[in-house]
């Protein structure tokens, strides 16, 4: 097993140097077993990273968190995958009754030599590394084309280091017969940093439904820095649900870039059940007329957890609709952040863009920072945004209590009702019901991050 040797914590001021050196000294391993397109992107990315480091100081994103400290921790960085646990032995999925194609990523790697799955109708899914070798044409056309390596240091870092991840290709007119469930497992005795990369290509008139579950299965510290690129062709339909349930020592940075072509429809639902530090970035480009985009999110935080959702919807073409709704429930000393940007380009007339963020604070010591940001350069548009941050509705609580419902139960009913708005947007019924159950468990304090794990570790 080859691994980097970090005995000491890296000095924050030397972070950029550290990662550049790590890259240079492991280049051979990083570039092994992947296709040309992935390797070609690396050198420019590492240069970009060297300029920005993990963040650029003008970037206000990390104002409320010590991101340098997070990245300075002495994580192990593996460039060769660790032994793969047999997924079915160790993992019982939280999402029950969902009939799906299943695929696992362990610490950012697919099982070595695992073949890509090719369905009868031409749908391909499996290891990104494998696909990058087999389908160089697709990678030349799509890989690293919409990820923002210029302004986001962490995206550039990912592009430089990414070795594997999940590749999904749904060809023209094809329909993915059942949802694809991607389970990300973080596992290991050592504190570990992982950087994986997903590429989803949904071609013209194709349809797919993808579920991504982020889980931690050992109590070591984890740092994940992952990038998703999603291309949705003309009149294609894609629904993604991301279910995040990591433990309190995990740090998760994810950057998701979506490009929609004419007449396509996308729904994205990010449910953050638990996590130490979670920072989700979702950037959508509506590049053709009559696109429809729905971006929803729900996060539940307590203790000293931190969850940030940064979204950006770029209306680059006329007659598109976007609808965004994020909801948060914050307790104890938790911090929540929502920043949503809507950009309506000149000529993107007849745009309809809506955004809402509602938060409930259950404690005096939790903090919520929320900022809608609308930049509108076209005249004939309909745009709105709205934010509310408040406590539980006392009148509703009294109403329920006056009917005999005990105070705590009344609070939970109200919180669950608040969350339902987002959960109800998930179209697959079995998935929606499982998510509702998980959210209810979380509200009752009964959800553990070990829920699906059959290992009996010390926790």
């Amino acid at each position: 097993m080859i691994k980097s040797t970090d005995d000491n914590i890296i000095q924050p001021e030397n972070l950029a140097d550290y990662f550049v050196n790590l890259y240079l000294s492991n280049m051979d391993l990083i570039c092994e077993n992947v296709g040309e397109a992935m390797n070609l992107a690396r050198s420019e990315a590492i240069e970009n990273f060297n300029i920005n480091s993990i963040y650029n100081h003008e970037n206000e994103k990390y104002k409320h968190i010590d991101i340098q400290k997070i990245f300075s921790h002495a994580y192990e960085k593996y460039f060769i995958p660790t032994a793969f646990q047999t997924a079915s032995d160790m993992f019982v999925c939280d999402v029950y009754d969902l009939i799906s194609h299943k695929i696992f990523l362990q610490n950012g790697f697919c099982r070595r030599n695992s073949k890509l799955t090719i369905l009868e109708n031409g749908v391909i899914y499996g290891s990104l590394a494998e696909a990058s070798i087999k389908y160089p044409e697709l990678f030349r056309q799509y890989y690293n084309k919409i990820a923002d390596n210029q302004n986001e240091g962490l995206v550039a870092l990912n592009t430089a280091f990414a070795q594997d991840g999940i590749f999904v290709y749904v060809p023209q007119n094809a329909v993915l017969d059942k949802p694809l469930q991607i389970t990300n497992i973080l596992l290991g005795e050592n504190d570990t940093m992982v950087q994986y990369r997903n590429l989803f290509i949904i071609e013209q008139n194709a349809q797919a439904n993808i579920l991504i579950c982020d889980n931690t299965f050992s109590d070591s510290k984890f740092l994940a820095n992952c990038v998703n690129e999603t291309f949705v062709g003309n009149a294609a339909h894609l629904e993604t649900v991301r279910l995040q349930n990591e433990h309190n020592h995990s740090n998760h940075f994810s950057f998701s870039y979506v490009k929609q072509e004419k007449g396509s429809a996308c729904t994205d639902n990010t449910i953050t059940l638990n996590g130490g530090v979670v920072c989700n970035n979702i950037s959508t480009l509506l590049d053709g007329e009559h696109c429809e985009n729905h971006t929803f999110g729900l996060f539940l935080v307590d203790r000293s957890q931190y969850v940030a959702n940064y979204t950006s919807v770029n209306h680059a073409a006329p007659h598109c609709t976007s609808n965004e709704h994020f909801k948060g429930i914050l307790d104890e000393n938790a911090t929540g952040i929502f920043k949503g940007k809507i950009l309506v380009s000149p000529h993107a007339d007849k745009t309809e863009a809506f955004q809402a963020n509602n938060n409930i604070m259950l404690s005096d010591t939790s903090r919520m920072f929320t900022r809608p940001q609308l930049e509108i350069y076209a005249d004939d548009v309909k745009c709105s945004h709205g934010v509310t941050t408040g406590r539980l509705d006392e009148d509703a609580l009294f109403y329920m209590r006056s009917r005999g419902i005990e105070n705590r139960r009344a609070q939970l009913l109200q919180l669950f009702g608040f969350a339902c708005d987002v959960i109800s947007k998930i179209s697959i019924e079995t998935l929606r019901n499982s998510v509702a159950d998980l959210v209810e468990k979380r509200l009752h304090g009964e959800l553990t991050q070990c829920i699906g794990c059959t290992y009996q570790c010390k926790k």
Partner: protein
Amino acid sequence: MLKIKNLHASIGGKEILKGVNLSINAGEIHAIMGPNGSGKSTLAAVLTGKPNYEVTEGEILFNDKNLLTMPPEERSHEGLFLSFQYPVEIPGVSNVNFMKAALNEHRKHKGLEPLSASEFLKLMREKMALVEIDSKLTNRSVNEGFSGGEKKRNEIFQMAMLEPKLSILDETDSGLDIDALRIVANGVNLLKRPDTSAIVITHYQRLLNYIVPDVIHVLYNGKIVKTAGRELALELEEKGYDWLKVEEIIDTSEMKN
């Protein structure tokens, strides 16, 4: 059933109830009338234990139990019910889940097992028919997007489900058209049993044509200034409240003497 003795209550330091005395026996319907701001809704709020209302003096006994030390949910378990003047909307909580939670807590209090899903639905259907409520409303969020009439009917439906001993109807007639008023009043009358009582709070005599009270009280400036039979309602409708105000001034000056 209910005994209120010298009840004083205030909100935000302002005294609203200034010594209310009221006694209600099983099987009786009492109407409480009075001008705006006289303390009618405050009385309902204090009876059901709404937070922020402070009882500074007096006591309330409900079936010989001290009501004032009980949290709102316990008062409900003991058989008290308030039909809200302004029923509250609870987004995301369906009517069916709300009622199931409420009913099962009542059953738990009585030492009964929760109802099975099918038993519950059967009961719900039965009670909905009583107030002619649209079954489509069951899966909707509690009161959300309901019309004024639907909200009030939903209150009476909840009352039917919980079978309280004492129901307080706080301006149940406000915002209702004649048909809805008839349906709501009819529901209340059907639920009436010899061992249950009701307090009907209203401004108008109209509701009392449908729900006929045994006794009418006039609450004015935080006190009950007049108690009489049902004929008082007609007199009030005709003369308004002003003549009572004069009587009260005479009363108080007599007391001072």
